[in-house]
């Protein structure tokens, strides 16, 4: 236990001293999480609603694809993006490899399957009568979507929380396409990887502790929000 303990003490000292690089890494991590979760929510929820509520032929296939994309290995996403963004590649002119923008893109793509697949699942879990009734009463398609979203909001929040978690802790894709450059495009998770490689165990542990703390804070915050939203749901039917 001695080594872990002494490194832990050194790590806590590093956090308490307020290392400036640590703060910039935290800042960048929050930026990545906000952008990736935001993109995943804005793009993914409408797609999830369409798959969950739509009545088109390929709906089941789309849903199977969305579920399967949850198993997409991040390293594969990173490699795919690298091959697209590398200089001689189709999108090479954008010069995205080893930039912060590449990190934003990679984490957004990794977070997307969660919002799409889990929103679709949440919407399908709704009592079927409700939406049919709304349709029969002449609700337009956007109105049905809004109603479904409101009724399934606990599940949709769970989807957003899952997207958040991915954006926080995945490292493979951003290490590949972002290059994991010190002081530039490192998130807390990829900075941990970097510090271990460099043999700075105390720094790695310090960053890991901050990462766990951040996850606890964000997840608990989102969880509380989810419960709040859920309580309102319980009130609604009794009216």
């Amino acid at each position: 236990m001695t080594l872990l303990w002494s490194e832990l003490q050194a790590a806590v000292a590093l956090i308490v001293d307020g290392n400036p690089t640590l703060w910039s890494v935290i800042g960048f991590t929050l930026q990545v999480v906000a952008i990736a979760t935001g993109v995943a929510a804005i793009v993914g929820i409408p797609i999830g609603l369409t798959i969950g509520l739509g009545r088109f032929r390929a709906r089941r296939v789309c849903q199977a694809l969305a579920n399967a994309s949850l198993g997409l290995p991040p390293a594969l996403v990173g490699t795919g993006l690298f091959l697209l963004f590398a200089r001689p590649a189709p999108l090479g002119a954008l010069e995205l490899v080893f930039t912060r923008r590449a990190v934003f893109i990679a984490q957004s793509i990794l977070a997307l399957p969660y919002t799409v697949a889990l929103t679709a699942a949440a919407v399908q879990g709704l009592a079927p009568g409700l939406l049919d009734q709304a349709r029969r009463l002449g609700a337009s398609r956007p109105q049905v979507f809004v109603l479904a979203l409101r009724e399934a909001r606990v599940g949709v929040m769970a989807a957003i929380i899952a997207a958040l978690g991915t954006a926080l802790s995945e490292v493979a894709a951003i290490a590949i396409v972002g290059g994991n450059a010190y002081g530039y495009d490192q998130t807390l998770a990829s900075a941990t990887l970097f510090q271990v490689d460099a043999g700075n165990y105390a720094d790695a542990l310090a960053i890991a502790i901050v990462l766990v703390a951040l996850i606890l804070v964000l997840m608990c915050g989102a969880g509380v929000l989810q419960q709040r939203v859920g309580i309102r749901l319980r009130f609604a039917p009794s009216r």
Partner: protein
Amino acid sequence: MAYLWQQCSGGARLILHGDPIIFGLLWVTVRVALVSTAAAVAIGLPFGVVLGLGRFRGRRALQILANASLALPPVVVGVVVLLLLVPQGALGSLRIGFTLTAVYVVQTILALPYVVALTPAAIQGVAPGLLDQARALGAARLQLAVLALREARIGMVAAVIAALGAAVSEVGAVVIVGGNVVGHDQTLASSLLANFTYGDTDPHNAGIAIMLAILVIVLLGSLSLLAHRSGGIRLRFRGG
């Protein structure tokens, strides 16, 4: 588009010609996935069943803890396990730091939350009357557990799929604990990480990525098919 095509076709050709590097990585990946998933099921299943069926104080707290452990970042698990396993660490005398054994250990730890957290969820999804009836008819605890697992098997397969998926595609912990040594404890996914950090773009990377995609599709696809078959059909017969 020529570049992308050249990379992908180059990678596919390497696989077709049985490139030893790619197939070596595949072999390590399959071993890591099977060993760590099997170990996670063996260790986690009893805990999951107790959490799902038990009626003791603190059950809910334990279940919340199990669910929360799903959000554990692999890099954090990797750092802690590494500091335990390095020669100066508490478990350093085991001499498994930077070996394939260490990779097995850390991937098992990462797969464990899926089994422990998803088993109770699956069991709690079983019609409650069924288990109560079995209890009332005097089923022993072990019999009850077997019954619950049999009824919840679709959920169980889902848990195994999740554990297997994590074992195949996670790299954060593997890289930290195993040291990502070529031809030794590198998996398909972790080798991609190592190669690209040097900015290298020979078709091997594309080949490894294609192989990883094939592995994920075959492994997880066949298991989900199994879940549909074994669960859905027999269950429907009994219900009818």
